[in-house]
Every structure is written in C-alpha cells, then in structure tokens.
C-alpha cells in the first residue's frame, strides 16, 4: 500500500477525523441514540449559523466583541509596556515587583470581575477593564524580559556613536527587544479575547458571549451550538492570524 494512503497529509487526516466524528454524531442522532435536546445533529447546527446572521445580528455582535477586545488590548498593552519599561529602567522596582507581576499572571484574574461590576456597573467598561487587566501581566513581563536581555555589545555600539538617550531607546533598545515584546502582545491579545467573551457570557452584556447565554436561556439548542461553534472558529482564526502576524513582522524586520 502506498505511504500516502496509510499516512495522508496531516491536514487531510485532520479533516477526515472531523468528518468521521460528525458522521458518527449525525448517525447516532438519526438512530435516536442521542436526544436532539441534548445534542442536535450537525445537519441542524451548521444551517443555524446562517440563522444567527438573520435573527441574532451576528455581525453587530462580532464587531462589538472585537471592539472590546481591541480596546482592552490597547489599554492593557500601553500600560503594560510602560510598566515593563519602568521595571527594566528602575532596577530596585524591577527586583521588588517582578515577582508580584509573575504571581498575578498565574492568578485567576478574571474572577475579579465582580469588583469591576460594582465599580463600573453592568456595561462595556467592566468588560474592557477586565480584559485590560488580564492583558497586562504577560505584556509587562515580556517587555521587561526583552529590554533586560538586549545584548550589551549593541548598547556599547550606541554609546560609541554618542547616541542620545532617546536615540538609544528608539534605534537600539526597542528594536532589539521587539521579538520578545511581540510574544507578550500576542499572548495579551489572546487573553483579551478569552476574558472579554467570558465576562460577556457571565454578566450577560455585550456581543458574542451574551448571544450564547441568550440562546441557552431560550433553549434554542441548535442555535446555541452554532453560536459556540462560531466563537470557537473566531478564536481559532484570531489565534492563527496573530501567530502569522508575529512571524511576518519578525521576518520583515
């Protein structure tokens, strides 16, 4: 038997596995082994994505969620990069607070949302604030790490050219630290999406997270599955794009 039949290209195998799983699900549903109220068959879920456009203003909700994600990522990365720069610049502050930031990166920060809920109320400010808080730890840590590990020979070259402080930052420190900072920004964007959708779902406000909660509350099971599938596809595409953007930016440098 030829090798490509036993081991087809990975992408093809992946699609085959999905097709088999969906087929088994559809067959189990048709045979009455799985209740439609628990898991409607794929043939009902996929068309329901189309219905989400018509009945549930999918585009508006999508734009709203991503608006919140980018607002949170913008605020969180701006503050995070500034704090990361400060922790690099002021060594005592770096020694005092870096451990704290690392601990907060491992902490379940999203569970702070009730605090933001009482501060800002049930609105977009709570969602954006919660997203921004979750973006900050990876951006701070990666910015500091990137700046700390700029090779000293590069800094010395800057000195021999008598660069001013600002020129040193703009022409040497920042470009050299950029790859590490990008890793932090990409992690931050992914965290922003996870937390924004999560908080939307929990507080019942905003875009795609709210849509899933509403469909679940109305027991529109096929629509709910379709909405969950749409969110999973959106986050996977988002992750893929940030990965590609990082590779592209770093190779174009």
């Amino acid at each position, binding site marked *: 038997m030829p090798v490509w039949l036993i*081991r087809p290209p*990975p992408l093809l*195998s*992946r699609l085959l*596995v999905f097709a088999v799983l969906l087929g088994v699900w559809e067959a189990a549903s048709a045979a009455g082994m799985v209740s439609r*109220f*628990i*898991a409607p068959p794929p043939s009902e879920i996929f068309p329901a994505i189309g219905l989400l456009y018509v009945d549930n203003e999918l585009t508006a909700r999508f734009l709203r969620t991503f608006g919140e994600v980018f607002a949170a990522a913008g605020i969180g990365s701006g503050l995070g990069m500034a704090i990361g720069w400060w922790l690099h610049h002021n060594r*005592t*502050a770096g*020694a*005092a*607070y870096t451990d704290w930031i690392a*601990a907060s990166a*491992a*902490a*379940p920060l*999203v*569970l*702070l949302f*009730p*605090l933001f*809920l*009482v*501060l800002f109320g049930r609105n977009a400010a709570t969602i954006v604030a919660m997203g921004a808080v979750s973006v900050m730890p990876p951006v701070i840590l990666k910015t500091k790490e990137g700046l700390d590990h700029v090779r000293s020979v590069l800094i010395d070259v800057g000195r021999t050219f008598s660069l001013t402080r600002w020129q040193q930052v703009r022409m040497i420190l920042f470009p050299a630290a950029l790859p590490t900072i990008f890793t932090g920004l990409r992690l931050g964007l*992914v965290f922003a*999406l*996870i*937390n924004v*959708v*999560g908080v939307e*779902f*929990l507080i019942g406000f905003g875009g795609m*997270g709210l849509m*899933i*909660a509403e*469909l*679940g509350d109305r027991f529109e*099971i096929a629509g*709910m*599955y379709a909405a*969950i599938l749409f*969110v*999973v596809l959106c*986050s*996977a595409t*988002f*992750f*893929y794009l940030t990965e590609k953007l990082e590779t592209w930016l770093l190779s174009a440098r």
Partner: protein
Amino acid sequence: MVAVGQVKSGLRARTRFSRVTIYRIVALVVIIALWEGAGASGLFFRGVIPSSVFVTAALLRLLGDPVFWGHFGVTLFEIVTGFAIGSALGMLGGLGIGMNRYAGQVFEPVAEYLASTPKVVFLPILLILFGIGVGSKISLGAISCFFPLALSIAAAVRNINPMYLRVGQSLNLTLTQRVKMIYLPALTPAIATGLRLGFGIATVGCLMSEIKLSNKGLGHAAMQAYGRFDIPTMLALLIVIFATAALGNSLIGRLIRLPGPTNRRVTHVPR
C-alpha cells in the same frame, strides 16, 4: 582587598535588599491608601468601595461561619476533581501527540486552537449534559486544564534528548518502561509547569461556572453577596478564592520540585 570588596558587595546587596523591601511596603501602603481614598472620596456610589476594616471584619466573620466552609468544601472538591481528571487526560494526550510525530502533526494544531478559545462558552452544553450540580463545574474545570497540560507535555516530549531514546531502544525497553524510565523523568519540569498553569485555569473554569449558574460553592456565595449588595463579604470571598488559588499553585510547585529517585537514573546516561 578581597575581603574589603566582599564586605562592600555584601553591604550593597543588603542595601538593595532593604530598598526592595521599602519599595514593596510603599506599594502596599499606596494601594491601601488609594483604596481608602477612593472609598471616602464620594466619586463612587456609597458602599461600592468599602473600607478595608469592613472587608477584614467580613473575612473574619466568614471564617467562623459553617455555611461558608460548606461552600468552600464544594468548591475545593470541584477544583481538585476537575484538575485531577483534566490533568490525567492532558498528560496522556500530550504523551500521545508528542511521542508520535504524525499524530502531533494532525492533532496538535487543533489542540492549540482550542486552547486559545474561552472554555466558559462550553458551559451551556455541560449544563445540559451534567445539570447545574457539581458535574458541570468539574467537567468545565477538566476541559480547561486539559489543554495547557497536553500542549506543554507534547512540546517537552519532542525536546527530549534523542540519545536517551536511542539508549532505550538499544536496551529493548517496552513502552511502559520507556514512559516510566525516560519520558516521565525527562518531563518533570514540563509537568510541573503544566500542572501549575492547569490548576489556575481549572480554578477559573470551576468558579466561572459556579458564578453563572449554581446553588452552592464560593462563586455562588460571592454572587449572592453581590445580589444583596454586601460588598465587604463579596470582596472577602474573592480574597479567599485568590488565596486558595495561590496556595494550590505553590503547593504543586513544592510537590513537584522534590527530586524523585527516578530522576537520577536517566539524567546521567553512561557514555
């Protein structure tokens, strides 16, 4: 001269240490002052930012309340069970896609993309499947911590020194022996990192589902406190949740760092 130099650097280190401590104390004082100031400023609604005295009082009251310990027990049970199931499956999955190159090429991208999705969106499905009791919380915790474990272990399996694997082959080790004597010891750091990440994420998964829909647990208690605008109790519950997460994290770190007897055997392969 050497002695003088050592004394000087020692002094410098101590000054740096004390300056670090001062910076930390200042930060804590500033945070508390900002909190108290914001509460007293009138910028927020009354009671939204309660004084830290009230929060401490609420915390002490909670610690003496058997109802609180009931909620605490339920949440702890959910987190530990979800974490145990998710991490066991995650380790198996990670070994599977790490040890077989082709399986890695097929399934690892899927695992990566799923890892970056907000898991809480699966909660409605889990609620239909397992009801509003502990089942839906445990399963969300397990799903959440499956991915970091699987991905960190798969990456670590691929980074194992190929010489160890060749030695295993030339000694005709069985699969179980290879896993026990080569993979597990070489993977200890990755398992430790994965477990710590996974514990945090399992905590988030369980607590988020408690907050959304439940009738017991710390998340439920926090939302009840929010509902009757008892902000000091809500904040005290958040403090308990964060302290539990931090304690679990450091406990896992300590447990894994203990050098196992099997560690030595493989890290020093005779040349």
